[in-house]
């Protein structure tokens, strides 16, 4: 969807055109799906559904249609962290697998997922936004409402833990 089409679709959706709302889900799910999947893991679908509800319900508050993707990314990240944190609180650490995967040269989806599961949701969020989405540390800090120093330290710990996982 071009920027012009996106702007027209956002405006139509803000006016209550449900065809436009449906089209926005097509447009946003690739972003929302990868953020929620990587941060909320097995609860990714719940997080993505909640994020899309929040996007659609609050669409009228979006003043600049061009900001849609960044705005949706913020909502998806916060929702994914919230859902993952709730899930973590329900679990016992002992439920996590004891065995780490054997070292491999090329990471498969399953292996990355295993490594991600060993991180805290907040660490996953920092890692995903920085390394998958390509945001600068200042942008990650702004999105997560954290000091830049906290983002740096979380990113450092997340990467170190990731490397440690591969080395074992």
């Amino acid at each position: 969807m071009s920027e012009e089409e996106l702007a027209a679709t956002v405006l139509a959706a803000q006016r209550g055109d449900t065809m436009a709302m449906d089209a926005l889900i097509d447009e946003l799910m690739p972003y929302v799906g990868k953020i929620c999947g990587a941060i909320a893991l097995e609860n990714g679908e719940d997080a993505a559904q909640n994020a899309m509800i929040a996007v659609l319900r609050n669409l009228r508050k979006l003043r600049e249609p061009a900001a849609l993707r960044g705005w949706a990314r913020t909502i998806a990240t916060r929702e994914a962290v919230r859902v993952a944190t709730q899930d973590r609180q329900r679990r016992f650490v002992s439920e996590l697998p004891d065995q780490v995967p054997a070292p491999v040269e090329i990471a498969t989806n399953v292996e990355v997922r295993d490594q991600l599961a060993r991180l805290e949701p907040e660490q996953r969020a920092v890692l995903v936004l920085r390394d998958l989405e390509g945001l600068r540390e200042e942008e990650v800090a702004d999105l997560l409402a954290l000091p830049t120093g906290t983002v740096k330290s979380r990113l450092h710990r997340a990467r170190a833990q990731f490397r440690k996982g591969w080395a074992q």
Partner: protein
Amino acid sequence: MGAVSAAQNPYPSVELDPIRRLHALAAAIPGAAVAERVLDAPFEAVWEVATDFEEGVPKIEIFVGSARILSREGDRLEVAVKYPIVGTTERLDVVLRPGWCWMQSGTAVAAMAARPEGDKTRFAHLEAFRIPGRRVLGRLLAAKIVLVRELQRIERLAQDRLRASQSS
């Protein structure tokens, strides 16, 4: 470090299945009513009768006298629907994909979502009005008698069609 491309991306990602997608949209549409149940018929048979606009839909929707497809391009359709009770004909814009059907006219919204569940089908149906008083009308729909009856008719028609295809 830049963002990884989609082809390289080993991070887990999620999609919204049609049922979740329908609930996400329903949550953002004032007065939308949704009924969901597992129909005792396979997905293919259910989806075939539910989206057979010209033959099936008038048998399912009690307010629809007849329906005629005006145009079809990709997953987009235009359908003329005649409502004998109020004596009007309305043009419906439709998005139609396997398991997903979103329809909108000037006065109403309707949607269907389905996914296989074993040899049965989980099916959700949404209806909403786009006219003043839609919240009150929505509460009437929310009694779900209308929607549940429609689901029962879809189930029965799918079973009939399945029996007919097996005996021929």
